């Protein structure tokens, strides 16, 4: 479902296989488990996380077909993603999303939950699809968008016009940090950036704490989740 590789001080988390990487409970558990593994690595506070994917999609959002068959799973998927995003926000290392395919709705939010968003410009888009499929946008998604997208017009274009945002538009809107000519080049770019960040030698715990402070409003809207905060407290902070 997702693979985890270590290259020097870089953790490469990949949403594996050629599918849509829909954020169903199984995939969410798999990603969360990879993050837990990363946290427990002794050199984690001098590392960098890169998240990427195989195939045409970064992630096409929640598994809506699954939710249609069992509505209780809607709540489960939302709860697991909240937990995962809170986890990413407190992660004691810089995080990079190497967006090599379409990222829609919850998939877009997952990409935005990273400190840096690198994207291919030859194909693929970021897309808050909810309006087009008649779903409302959860308040915590809107909070992430407000945090990560600075201009009111761009936020409106993303949420209320349901624009399919290419890398070029993403750069204009300030959602995307840099764009590349292909999927491979995007990952290469992420690796280069990751190595640069490792070289800076930032203390990951301090970094993670600062990110939490910066994204306090988003964390607040995600809601306090006891199991998440307990896990974070037990993850071996130096303080």
């Amino acid at each position, binding site marked *: 479902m997702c693979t985890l590789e270590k290259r020097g001080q870089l953790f490469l988390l990949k949403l594996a296989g050629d599918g849509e990487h829909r954020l169903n409970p199984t995939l969410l558990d798999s990603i969360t488990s990879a993050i837990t593994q990363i946290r427990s690595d002794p050199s984690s506070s001098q590392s960098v996380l890169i998240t990427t994917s195989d195939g045409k999609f970064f992630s096409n959002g929640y598994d809506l077909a699954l939710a249609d068959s069992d509505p209780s799973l*809607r709540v489960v998927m939302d709860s697991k993603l909240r937990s995962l995003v809170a986890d990413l926000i407190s992660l004691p290392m810089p995080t990079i999303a190497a967006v090599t395919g379409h990222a829609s709705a*919850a998939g877009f939010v997952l990409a935005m939950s990273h400190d840096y968003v690198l994207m291919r410009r030859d194909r693929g888009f970021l897309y808050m699809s909810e309006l087009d499929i008649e*779903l*409302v946008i959860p*308040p915590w998604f*809107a909070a992430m968008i407000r945090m990560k997208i600075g201009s*009111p*017009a761009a936020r409106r274009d993303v949420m209320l016009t349901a624009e399919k945002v290419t890398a070029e538009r993403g750069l204009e809107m300030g959602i995307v940090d840099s764009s590349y000519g292909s999927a491979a080049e995007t990952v290469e770019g992420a690796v280069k950036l990751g190595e640069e960040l490792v070289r800076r030698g930032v203390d990951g715990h301090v970094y993670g704490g600062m990110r939490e402070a910066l994204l306090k409003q988003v964390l607040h809207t995600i809601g306090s989740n006891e199991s998440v905060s307990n896990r974070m407290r037990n993850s071996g902070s130096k303080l």
Partner: protein
Amino acid sequence: MCTLEKRGDLFLLTLTGDDEHRFHPDTISSVLSLLEQAKSQSTRGSVLITTAHGKFFSNGFDLAWAQAAGSQTGAVNRMHQMVESFKPVIAALFDLPMPTIAALNGHAAASGLMFALSHDYVFMRNDRGVLYMSEVDLGLPLPDYFAAMFAAKIGTSIARRELLLSGKKIKGEEAVALGIVDSAAHDSVEGVVDATVSLGQSLAAKKWNGEVYASIRKSLYPGLCAMLSLTAKIAASP
């Protein structure tokens, strides 16, 4: 005073007559009533375009009517009445179950600019018309929901300062540069109306569900909507 017309999917709300289209209790009431009418007739694919005749989109509240109260207290009460009764007009626009577009034929000042900014998309002319928050020049304090609108819709502190504190009269090109309006590439009233009709038709073609649209709009501006006592009607779910 104001009219509501239907052209296919598009509702056209027009402030008629060659005057300043100042907001007075009667105009406020008429506009509110027409917005309620549009809401009750809305279907999938409906879009609202708001425009006006003459040199002004709207020059704000009817200060002359306030002064005509004949006393300081009377004037203050009338101002207060207009500020309070205008709030539901803004709320109605944020609640409207369809995309909204303001086509500025001319000047938009104070509550007239608030009225424009309450739309999802704002187009103006580059040859005529300014945006102007006159309050600082008139020595009038800013109502709380006016300040909240600026915080919600105008992204840079420089743009907010220019409008609210410097009392700058901002023309089309600068308004686009400051991110206050979406487009000012139009050098006539026909040009700006045509452009909004064109945008309106492309939005209408999406055939969006109006209630979902309004819920998403409100979740874009939670602070302002809380102040307007608006909540999303549909509970969010993944």
